[in-house]
């Protein structure tokens, strides 16, 4: 998409959005990409924050 001024150089790129189901479907469809990605093994920020809370709530023995 071209910016209104016609100059896209200083337009910030959109944030990457990750849809695990789409990744898995596309991996099946196109047989491309690496195995972890194809299996949908991707962690986004929200998932990481949940994981972080869970790990830090555990006590070391």
């Amino acid at each position: 998409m071209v910016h209104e001024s016609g100059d896209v150089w200083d337009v910030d790129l959109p944030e990457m959005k990750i849809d695990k189901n789409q990744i898995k479907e596309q991996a099946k469809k196109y047989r491309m990409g690496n195995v972890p990605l194809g299996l949908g093994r991707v962690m986004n920020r929200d998932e990481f924050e949940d994981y972080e809370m869970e790990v830090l709530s555990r006590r070391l023995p």
Partner: protein
Amino acid sequence: MDDLSDREEARLKELTELYAKYKHIMLYADALRGEHFAPPTNEMKDAFDHLMRIYSVKFGLRPDQNENYVFTNIDAAYRHIYRATFEWLDYIRIVQMDYITEKLEDISSETLSAVFPDYYKDIRPEISRIVAEIPAYKSDKDIGSPDITIVTRYFESVKQLRSHLNRIERNIPALIKYEEITKKLEGISSEALVKVFPEYYKEILPDISRIVAEITSYKVDEDVDSPDIQIELQYSESIKQLESHSNRINSMIPALIKYEGERKNEKRHDYTIYAIIAVIAALVGAAASVVISAAIT
């Protein structure tokens, strides 16, 4: 291509040094769980975009930018790589903590104290210190002037965690074997061990103590990528010996349980006799008191 100014060149050099650290951290982190962690990739995509803006000016595609444009974009790229590095460092810290708690969750504190005394002495306090220290670094990551020394400090902490993790990992087989042995003998009295399995106190227990002392005396190689082969062989030999004792104890468990069962039955029998004697004594006492009171009246 136009030359870089001194200021631009200095910042670009810092960016390159930071990227070297980023790459090292990223390659290590990426292999930890076999999954892709998206947030740093997002930052790197933005860093790349800022670098391309610089090239667009330096190659004359957009010659009329102000004099700060190139420096501002080098600085912006630096900040994105800085944030990407912190994303990975946070990720590593949490994955390592997860790994440590998961590995040790079934190991009792008694076993840890006996086989791996350094865990409570040095490692556990150090892990707690590092984990408490890291969020302080994390809160610094958004400050106005990103500082590579903070990344270096954080990186060193994560490397320390990695070294502790390696020591824990190395001790896991010994911890599991020792835990197995102690669990097998839970509920078995020393009397049963002396009677049914006299070798336990004579040979096996002293030998287990010797092996554990040997394991704890092995110097741990801090260089996780090139461990000392001689020590590794000794360690593996110790584990085999523990395993052999564990198997021997295992073979004696049915006999020990049988003995314990018989002992309990005998005790139950004894209690029945004591109860009958007590009842008879009470009856005799009652009869005697009746006779005595009749004699008095």
